[in-house]
């Protein structure tokens, strides 16, 4: 009996001679909302499709609810999937779309009616049951696709980039709706997206993938605060973390990171790394602030007021850095001023391996 609800053990996938997944090991606990996130081509969709039973396993194991499902047909895995294209049957009404899977399983009619009623009330689909998918808006189709998954009452929900066909406003709404649905049903969910904001806001467990490997697994804020390597550091967070290469040097007040242009970036005393080591210094935009009393000379190149926050691009010793301030910025592009770094929030990565120090 596995302790995780969905477990992958040394899972590999090849298409022809090309290996897409290079040995994935991952445990997703029961009831978790796990988000697989990474750039396109990282293997996240392949991993989801393998979980669904739509792609064969080349080697390794997939376990769902303690059962090895490598050779179990998609329909018998206890999963339901929501597709990016929604994959609603265009010639069937909303109700028929939702009941198709149950009819195929010869579910008693009364039970089908009950389940559709329940799903329709959860997703507010009642008035739409007789309509065809072509008569619905994008957000409504999305809800029908979720309704179809709900009626199956699966052990695991799989979502494949479900929001990428919606406009920005609707995406934010549906994001909240899916999360609320999960909090209500507590069904284990695996959700694939390339959008790191979806990953951060929705997940209990973020799985960052890159080039067919898992880069880091953890709670969203834990990963955000302590990215395991340069890839994760750059991928999670918007605007992205500032990364500045340099060498650890000894200063009068302790160690600093010295850049090629002679800039000295502060480190907290507990920071790892030895003097002389080549590193990449990482600082998130919100931890680099304009400060007239600061000791880092900068020249602003772009100021983007967004209302509740202001994004500032600036030249720091030859590097373009981004800052996010919740204060309004009076300076304009071209102005020279100074900034400070919150040294306790600095990240250090080994320049050679890219791993966190």
């Amino acid at each position: 009996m596995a302790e995780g609800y969905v477990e992958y053990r040394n899972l590999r996938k090849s298409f022809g001679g090309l290996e897409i997944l290079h040995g994935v090991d991952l445990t997703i606990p029961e009831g978790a909302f796990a988000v697989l996130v990474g750039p396109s081509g990282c293997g996240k969709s392949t991993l989801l499709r393998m979980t669904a039973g739509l792609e064969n396993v080349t080697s390794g194991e997939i376990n769902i609810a303690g059962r090895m499902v490598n050779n179990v047909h998609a329909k018998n895995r206890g999963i339901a999937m929501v597709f990016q294209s929604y994959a609603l049957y265009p010639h069937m009404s909303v109700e028929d779309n939702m009941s198709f899977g149950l009819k195929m399983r010869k579910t008693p009619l009364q039970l089908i009616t009950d389940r559709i009623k329940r799903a329709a009330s959860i997703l507010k689909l009642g008035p739409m049951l007789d309509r065809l998918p072509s008569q619905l808006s994008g957000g409504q189709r999305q809800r029908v696709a979720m309704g179809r998954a709900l009626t199956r009452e699966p052990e695991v929900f799989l979502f494949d980039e479900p929001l990428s066909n919606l406009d920005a406003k609707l995406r934010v709404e549906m994001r909240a709706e899916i999360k609320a649905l999960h909090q209500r049903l507590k069904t284990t969910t695996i959700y694939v997206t390339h959008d790191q904001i979806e990953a951060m806001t929705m997940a209990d467990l973020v799985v960052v993938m890159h080039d067919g490997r898992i880069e880091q697994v953890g709670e969203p804020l834990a990963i955000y605060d302590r990215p395991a390597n340069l890839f994760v550091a750059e991928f999670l967070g918007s605007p992205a973390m500032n990364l500045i290469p340099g060498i650890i040097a000894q200063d009068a007040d302790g160690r600093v990171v010295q850049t090629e242009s002679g800039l000295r970036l502060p480190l907290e005393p507990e920071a790892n790394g030895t003097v002389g080591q080549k590193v990449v210094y990482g600082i998130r935009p919100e931890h680099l602030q304009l400060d007239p009393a600061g000791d880092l000379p900068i020249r602003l190149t772009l100021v983007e007021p967004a209302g509740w926050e202001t994004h500032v691009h600036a030249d720091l010793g030859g590097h373009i850095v981004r800052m996010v301030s919740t204060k309004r910025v009076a300076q304009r592009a071209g102005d020279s001023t100074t900034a400070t770094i919150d040294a306790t929030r600095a990240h250090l990565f080994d320049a050679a391996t890219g791993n966190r120090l």
Partner: protein
Amino acid sequence: MSHTTPMVEDGPTGADRLKPFVPYLLVLPGLLFVMGILGYAVVGGIILSLNETDMFMNKTFVGLKNYIDVFADPRFQDAMVRTLNFVVISIVLGIFMSMSFALVLYKVVRGRRFFRGLSLVPYFVSGIATAVMFRFIFTTSGGFVNTVLAQLGLPAQSWLGDPTLAFVVAIMANCWFMVPFASLILLGGLQTIDKDLYDAAAIDGANPIQIFFRITLPLIKPMLGVSLIWVSYISFSTFDIVLALTSGGPLKATELVSIYMYELAFQQLNFGQGAVLMVVLLVFNTVLSLIYIKIFVMGDRRHSEAGK
């Protein structure tokens, strides 16, 4: 944009008022051309059928006499029954073969374009050449099929000499000609189906047969309708293949309405009765096509009300 929001005082300009008609104006010349040619033939045929016409094309109006004579003619009655058999068997066999080919071609990954192109070759071969080829294949002495049968130790058959077998061979030749185009239409339909639907259906627990009948078939209904129109029309109107293959024989076993029409009009020079047969074929083809369109194209649920 000023031209789409006309001022109240000015009203729409002349060009604005014409705009909705532009598409129709553009297709008008082509439409008139086609209607002209078709209309001339159809109207001319109907006029012929209502007249007694001699070989100098002098017409005498006789009303429905030709129709009464033709419908009472036992040779026509036999040809009509034979044609209906021929058409029904051809439609069933032809659609089954077209669908099978379309599904196979859809699945082919390697050399897809090559095989799709290759599959159309029979369609490009003329009816006469197809008939000659089938005669080579089914000739009693030294024909391909009988040679193979002999190798297997089976008795030779008189394929084109036996009434039943000749009828079967004629249907095969007809299918050979019409299946490629019909399967291309169906293949086009298959390619419009979102592949995610098959994944969704697999997860929903549908087996391949259920997927075919409950997802694939309903979604290619319009294309199925078009290929049915094609297959029915070709089968009703088939002429050159059967004429060159059997000339309607043996013992009139393959004398279809179209063959008899040729015999009446151009051998017996009875243009009036020949034209009646043309009208009969026209009515059958039109009625069948309208039924197909009603059921398959108009009945496609996806477009039943306001689209997207």
